[in-house]
C-alpha cells in the first residue's frame, strides 16, 4: 500500500482499508476484553507486556527516589540526631510490647494445644517499596518492586505497619501489581474483633472508606469496633487489623444495615508495604479450609469463602 501511494503524502488514506483495519482491531479488542473479564488465560501476555513497561516505571521512579536520596543525604546532623533518638524510643517501646506478645503467643499456642486446635503458623515478612500507583482513579492498584524472582505469588497479602493494605493480583518478574482493599472490585472476609462476628468488607472506591453490605439489621456491631482478617478466604492470614467501624445505620425498611468502616492502614499515604509469606505456602489453603470447617456453623462462612475465591 505504501509503495503505491508513496508519491503523495497528503492524500487521504485508503478509506476501506482503514475501516477494515479498524473493524478487525475492534473485534480483536472485544475478544480480548471478554476473555480477560471471564478467564485468566491472558496472564502470560499481560506479564510479558508488563515486563516491557518495567524500564518506564524505573525511569519515572528515578527522579522521585533521587530526590528522596538528596533529602536524606542533606539532612542536618541535628535532624538526624533527633530522628535517631525518636526511633530509639520507638524501638524500646516496640520491644517491650513484643516481650508481652511473645508471652501471649506462647500462652495462645498452649491453650490451642489444650483445645486440640491447629496452632497458628508463623509467617515470613519482607518489606517492598511502592513504585507507582494506578493512574486510573477507579482501580486502586499499586505496583511494588518485588516480583516472581523474589518469590512473590498471586494472591499474596500486603500489609503496612497499621493494617491490611491489599493483595497481589499480578506477578511480574521484577515488579508486581497489588489491588488495595479500597478498590470497588475487592472483597475481604473479616471478623469483628470484639465478638468474632464474620462478614465481608467491600472496597468503596474511596481510600478512607470500606463498606460492610452483608450485615443484618440486628447484627451485633457498633461504631469503633475493630475488624480483623478472619483468614477464612485463605488469601489473608488471620488476625491482621483491617478497619475500624465508622458508622452503623439501621433502617427497619431495609433488609441489611448500612455499615461503613475506616481502613486501619493509610492506603493513599503508604510508601512501603510488607509482603507476607505464611509458614507453609502449600499448606495455607488447607489450613484455611479446615478452619472454615471448624467454625463454619454460622451462615456467613459460605458467602465469605465464595466471595474471596472470586477475587
Amino acid at each position, binding site marked *: 500500500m*505504501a509503495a503505491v501511494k508513496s508519491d503523495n*503524502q497528503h492524500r487521504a488514506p485508503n478509506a476501506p482499508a*482503514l475501516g477494515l*483495519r*479498524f473493524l478487525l*482491531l475492534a473485534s480483536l479488542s472485544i475478544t480480548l476484553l471478554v476473555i480477560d473479564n471471564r478467564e485468566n488465560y491472558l496472564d502470560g501476555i499481560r506479564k510479558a507486556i508488563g515486563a516491557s513497561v518495567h524500564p518506564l516505571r524505573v525511569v*519515572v521512579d528515578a527522579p522521585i527516589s533521587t530526590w528522596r536520596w538528596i533529602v536524606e543525604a542533606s539532612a542536618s546532623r541535628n535532624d538526624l540526631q533527633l530522628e535517631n533518638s525518636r526511633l530509639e524510643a520507638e524501638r524500646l517501646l516496640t520491644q517491650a510490647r513484643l516481650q508481652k506478645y511473645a508471652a501471649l503467643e506462647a500462652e495462645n499456642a498452649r491453650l490451642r494445644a489444650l483445645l486440640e486446635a491447629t496452632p497458628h503458623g508463623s509467617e515470613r515478612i519482607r518489606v517492598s517499596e511502592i513504585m507507582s500507583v494506578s493512574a486510573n482513579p477507579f482501580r486502586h492498584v499499586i505496583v511494588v518492586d518485588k516480583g516472581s524472582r523474589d518469590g512473590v505469588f498471586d494472591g499474596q497479602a500486603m500489609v503496612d505497619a497499621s493494617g491490611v493494605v491489599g493483595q497481589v493480583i499480578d506477578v511480574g518478574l521484577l515488579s508486581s*501489581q497489588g489491588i488495595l482493599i479500597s478498590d470497588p472490585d475487592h472483597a475481604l472476609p473479616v471478623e469483628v474483633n470484639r465478638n468474632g462476628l464474620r462478614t465481608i468488607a467491600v472496597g468503596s472506591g474511596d481510600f478512607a472508606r470500606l463498606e460492610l453490605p452483608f450485615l443484618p439489621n440486628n447484627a451485633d456491631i457498633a461504631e469503633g469496633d475493630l475488624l480483623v482478617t478472619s483468614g477464612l478466604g485463605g488469601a489473608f492470614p488471620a488476625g491482621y487489623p483491617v478497619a475500624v467501624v465508622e458508622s452503623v445505620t439501621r433502617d427497619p425498611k431495609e433488609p441489611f444495615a448500612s455499615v461503613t468502616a475506616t481502613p486501619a492502614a493509610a492506603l493513599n499515604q503508604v510508601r512501603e508495604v510488607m509482603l507476607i509469606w505464611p509458614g507453609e505456602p502449600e499448606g495455607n489453603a488447607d489450613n484455611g479450609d479446615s478452619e472454615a470447617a471448624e467454625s463454619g456453623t454460622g451462615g456467613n462462612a459460605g458467602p465469605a469463602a465464595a466471595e474471596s475465591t472470586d477475587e
Partner: protein
Amino acid sequence: MSNGRNTWRLPVLLSIVVALMLGIVPLPAAVEAFRPDWVALTLIYWAMTLPRSYSVGTAWIVGIVVDAAHGTLLGQHALALCFVIYVTVKFHLQLRVFPLSQMTATVFALLALYQFLLFWINGVAGLHTDAVTYWGPVVSGTLIWPLLSMLFAGIRYRVRSDA
C-alpha cells in the same frame, strides 16, 4: 517517502513513550482526577498530521501497553483509542485546516468520546464507577491541547528543517 517516514519515527515514538511515562507518574490525590490523558492527546495529534504512518494500528498497540501498565481490562484502552483515532483519521483533512479554537473544541469531543467508551466498557464489565470523575481528564486535556499542539508543531518544524 520511506526516507521521510524514518525521520519522523524517532520523535513520534519518543513522544508516545514520554506520554506513557507521564501517565504513570504518581501525583497527589487532589490533582490525580485531573491528569490529562497524555497518550490519547499525543496519538490524536500524530494521527491528524501523519495519518498514513500512525493510525489505528499504532493506537491499538499503544492501547494494549496502557492496559498492561494500568492493570485495566486487556483491550479496554486499545478499543477506545482505536475508535478515537479512527474518527480522527477519518476527519483529519478537516481537522488540519480548523483554526485552533475549533480544533480544540473537536479535541474536547474526541476526549469525551474516549472517556465515554472507557466508562461504557467498565459498566459492561461490571465495574461501576462514578460518572462525574470521567470529566476531569476531558477538561484538563482540552485545556492543555493548544499548548501541546504548539509544542508538537515546534518539534515538526525542527525535524523538517533538519531533514
